[in-house]
């Protein structure tokens, strides 16, 4: 990693200069929140946006896409060239989630659809200031040295521009005149002051220490049934979560029957059919079982498998569930703390 | 006694049939049966909020869904004291044009033209008239697209709602609509000339009365007063005077009379009453093809619809510009009051449609809908009777009579699901 500086007023020129690296996607305002959208007018980018409704995952495995087409003769892989893309504005929590996703999609088997898109993607991270839903400090995902090609830390009238990969370096070399190679001691002090200020600003204090043991002991807790009664099985919690990758595979046929395509779509462990097998037996018939799966996965099993939780503290699910079942309320409930919804 | 029955009447929207009873050469009865079941929609909306009403009332009919929605919105917004902002007004004009375009092109090219060219369906017609059918379907698709973009989906879109629109379409989408409208104009003109070239039988011709909304100084599809071919102009609040209803045991729709006489509404009424105001290509076509047989023969409704297609296509670019001129999307306008009464009149593709509401405590207290096909029923039966008489005199066989009656009936583009539920007896 290497650090340079870039003046704020140069940012748009910089984004213009790196156009050859692909379509620029950044957070833009939509209703009361933000969504990641393709931007051509850089002034639409919301630099202070915290979380987009759906995270970056939609650009690496879209909610629905064609795996391949088929006809009477057999299958045909898509020869369509995917566009190159630059995702701008990912915060440390999402960058951690991106690392989890990268790892997940190459573990045991490389997922070619993910890889295809990932290889065409450059990532520019952006520093942030927590609001009352952020708890990445609790999940220890509030900093990252990895997962980005470039990362911008906002220090007032300039950014520190961290170069995290050779691709990032290529981008900077497109426009050397826009960056300032010299980082001074003064800048370091500013950076440290900024960190202190940011860290003291986390309002949501969750403590996940020892969570796996608590989950283990709570396996038969009546809490799951109570939550199951309330849950609407809408899947919102999984849709917004940057570390939820589950999908379904559905064939679409044209009317004649001979031609069609195999499609992949987002699925959710909160849906009824998720664990159903032929003949109608459902391994997770009750909603409480599904909720248990989701939270065991995030807070216990993943830790067992990878040494870290699959929750990166982005706080998306905290705003998403209509009946307030989220990582915060569940963790607080299980630990016998006062639950704030 | 001989009975000629056509049931169900195909290629009309809804379930209907025709029955002719002959006693030798004498006609005993000619009936246009409305077989569609009853839905009692006017009673369903009572006790609902205005917004819920809009969602229910539009489901009276899938073809005229936007006209019903528009009439309901106008009636309800009058009752609630809502003035919609200009951008919403232009959007409503666009959606209304989309529906007129959709319905007219479906009727002229897909439902009626096969009759004149001697095919059972547009699909069967495609073999010889491939280009025409393809173009007609493309035009209809474009019209559907306008409806989808403005109302949220092709049928029963909820986007036009009390006080405006839930969401306004993107600029690129609108610009594309503008462009396509221009592109389709050539085919529309060709289509009008094609229809105008058809041989139209004249033996059942007879003068009648025409009614439509008075849109102001131009040709249009909406207004607060009604223009009658006799020269009168009547406020739409007095709609009951124009549409006296009577119950007929063979019909789930009630029949309407004006001063005791049958009358015609729809494209033919609009073009006959307001055609002089048409400009551009539509104006030229009107001048070229219109003659006083249009005042006597309902088959010319097809011609009038074709002219309207051209008119609608010519209107669209201007309306799109009007929408785009206003950058800010206005929020929905909230009701000024919770009580009131209002009549909304619009021109559905088939003719004048009235929605009359009374609102109390924010809920619908009473509703009355008068739909165009109900208003046309008496004239439909009148012309069928004339045609049967004429054909018996010529010694025509049952099949020929059957086809001729179907053609007349279909020319009115009757919308049966609409008509069934709407008309209500007023007993004094």
């Amino acid at each position, binding site marked *: 990693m290497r650090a340079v500086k870039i003046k704020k007023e140069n940012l748009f020129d910089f984004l213009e200069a790196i156009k050859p690296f692909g379509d620029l996607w950044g957070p833009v305002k939509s209703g009361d929140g933000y969504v990641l959208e393709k931007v051509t007018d850089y002034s639409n980018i919301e630099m202070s946006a915290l979380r987009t409704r759906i995270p970056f995952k939609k650009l690496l495995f879209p909610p629905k896409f064609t795996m391949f087409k088929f006809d009477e003769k*057999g299958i045909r892989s898509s020869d369509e060239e995917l566009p190159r893309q630059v995702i701008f504005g990912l915060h440390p929590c999402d960058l951690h989630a991106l690392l989890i996703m990268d790892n997940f999609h190459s573990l*045991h*088997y490389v997922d070619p659809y993910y890889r295809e898109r990932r290889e065409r993607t450059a990532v520019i991270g952006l520093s942030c200031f927590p609001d009352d839903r952020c708890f990445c400090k609790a999940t220890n995902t509030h900093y990252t040295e990895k997962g980005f090609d470039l990362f911008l830390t906002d220090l007032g009238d300039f950014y520190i521009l961290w170069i995290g990969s050779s691709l990032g370096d290529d981008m900077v070399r497109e426009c050397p005149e826009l960056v300032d190679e010299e980082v001074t001691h003064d800048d370091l002090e500013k950076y440290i002051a900024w960190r202190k200020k940011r860290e003291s600003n986390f309002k949501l204090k969750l403590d996940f220490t020892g969570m796996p043991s608590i989950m283990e002991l709570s396996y038969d807790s009546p809490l799951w049934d109570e939550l199951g009664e309330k849950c609407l099985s809408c899947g919102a919690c999984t849709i917004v979560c940057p570390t939820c*990758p589950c*999908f379904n595979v559905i064939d679409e*046929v044209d009317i004649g029957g001979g031609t069609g395509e195999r499609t992949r779509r987002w699925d959710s462990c909160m849906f009824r059919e998720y*664990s159903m097998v*032929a003949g109608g037996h459902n391994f997770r018939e009750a909603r409480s079982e599904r909720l248990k799966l989701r939270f065991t*996965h995030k807070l216990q*099993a993943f830790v067992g498998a990878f040494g870290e939780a699959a929750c990166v503290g982005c706080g998306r699910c905290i705003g998403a569930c209509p009946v307030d079942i989220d990582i915060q309320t569940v963790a607080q409930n299980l630990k016998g703390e006062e639950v704030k919804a | 006694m001989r009975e000629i029955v056509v049931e169900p009447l195909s290629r009309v929207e809804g379930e209907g049939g025709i029955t002719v009873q002959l006693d030798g050469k004498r006609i005993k009865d000619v009936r246009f049966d409305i077989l569609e079941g009853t839905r009692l929609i006017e009673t369903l909306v009572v006790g609902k909020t205005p917004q819920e009403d809009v969602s229910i009332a539009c489901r009276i009919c899938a073809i005229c869904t936007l006209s019903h929605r528009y009439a309901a919105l106008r009636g309800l917004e009058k009752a609630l004291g809502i003035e919609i902002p200009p951008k919403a007004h232009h959007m409503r004009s666009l959606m209304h044009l989309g529906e007129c375009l959709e319905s007219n092109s479906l009727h002229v090219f897909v439902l009626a033209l096969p009759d004149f060219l001697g095919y059972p369906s547009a699909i069967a017609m495609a073999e010889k008239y491939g280009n025409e059918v393809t173009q007609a379907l493309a035009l209809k698709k474009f019209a559907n697209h306008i409806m989808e973009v403005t109302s949220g989906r092709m049928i029963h879109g909820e986007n036009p709602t009390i006080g405006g629109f839930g969401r306004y379409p993107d600029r690129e989408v609108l610009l594309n609509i503008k462009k396509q409208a221009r592109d389709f104009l050539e085919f529309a003109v060709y289509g009008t000339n094609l229809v105008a070239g058809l041989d139209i039988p004249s033996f059942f011709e007879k003068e009648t009365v025409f009614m439509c909304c008075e849109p102001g100084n131009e040709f249009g599809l909406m207004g607060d007063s009604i223009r009658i071919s006799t020269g009168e102009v009547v406020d739409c609040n007095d709609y009951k005077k124009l549409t006296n209803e009577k119950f007929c045991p063979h019909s789930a729709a009630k029949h309407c009379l004006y001063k005791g006489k049958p009358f015609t509404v729809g494209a033919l009424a609009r073009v006959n009453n307001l055609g002089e105001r048409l400009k551009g290509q539509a104006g030229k076509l009107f001048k070229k093809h219109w003659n006083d047989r249009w005042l006597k023969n309902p088959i010319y409704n097809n011609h009038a619809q074709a002219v309207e297609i051209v008119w609608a296509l010519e209107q669209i670019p201007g309306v799109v510009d009007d929408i785009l001129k206003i950058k800010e999307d206005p929020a929905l306008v909230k009701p000024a009051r919770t009580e009131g009464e209002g009549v909304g009149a619009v021109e559905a593709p088939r003719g004048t449609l009235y929605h009359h509401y009374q609102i109390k405590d924010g809920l619908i207290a009473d509703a009355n809908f008068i739909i165009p096909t109900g208003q046309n029923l008496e004239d439909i039966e009148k012309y069928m009777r004339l045609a049967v008489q004429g054909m018996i005199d010529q010694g025509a066989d049952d099949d020929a009579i059957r086809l001729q009656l179907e053609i007349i009936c279909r020319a009115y583009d009757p919308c049966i699901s609409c008509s069934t539920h709407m008309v209500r007896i007023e007993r004094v």
Partner: protein
Amino acid sequence: MKAETQLQNPYEPEPMRLIRRYPLNEDVHFFQVRAVDMEKALSLNYLPGQFMMISINGIGEAPFSISSTPSRPGLLEFGIRKVGNMTNRIFQLKENGIFGVRGPYGNGFPIEKIKGNDLVIIMGGLGAVPLRSLLLYALDNRDQFGKIYLLHGARTPDEMLFRNEFFNMMKRDDLFCHLTVDQDDTGQWPFETGVVTRLFGKLAHIDPKNTYFAVCGPPVMYKFVVAEILKLNVPKHQILMTLERRMKCGVGKCGHCIIGGYIYTCLEGPVFSYWDVLHMKGLI
């Protein structure tokens, strides 16, 4: 297959030809298939207990256990029960027809660990399909295993899968083969009647330290069978069972087969030891 060496898209099925099919009972049919590409057909390597994803364009994919043994390369065999859309369409396939298959997936039986030990195979119903692979493998490599027992239960004589094959095996002297049916309406059934646990009496002395058990059958069977095995003091990790879950990918991505929060049945199963089962909640 290791991630680094993977070249091909693991989701694109390989065309296979249906060589032969016939009914095993009323709703389970036997399907013998071979990769259209002969070279691939011969090089396809797998372990007993692994499964493949069968793909029918227009309907989708579903996992099916391999019933043949890798010791007889070239042909793949499946036993498939007709239960829904996907299996309906598989049943419409004619001999010589082409369809898609990808795999093998899953862990399979830990053959290397079993080798040198005695092996008891307990199958019920459709469980015969995957365990037949293990059985045939062990018989083909007879010298590498100790005593081999087969306990097979079916509901009725008509429903018993691979009936003739197992009848013939009764004649072998290097295998203790015992068959039972829950109920015999024909009156012609020459062997045991009663549930499969009744056959435990047929087991001679079992040396618990050196015996592996492989179990597959309907969910209810496990409870009773495992209880019997535990009575013999067999270590829990030597009791192996193959489990079924919903699967959409077979390669540990789609999530449907997850158990216990992070175990993907398709990667770490479908063969689990009873120790795993106890350890991971929600397994059976």
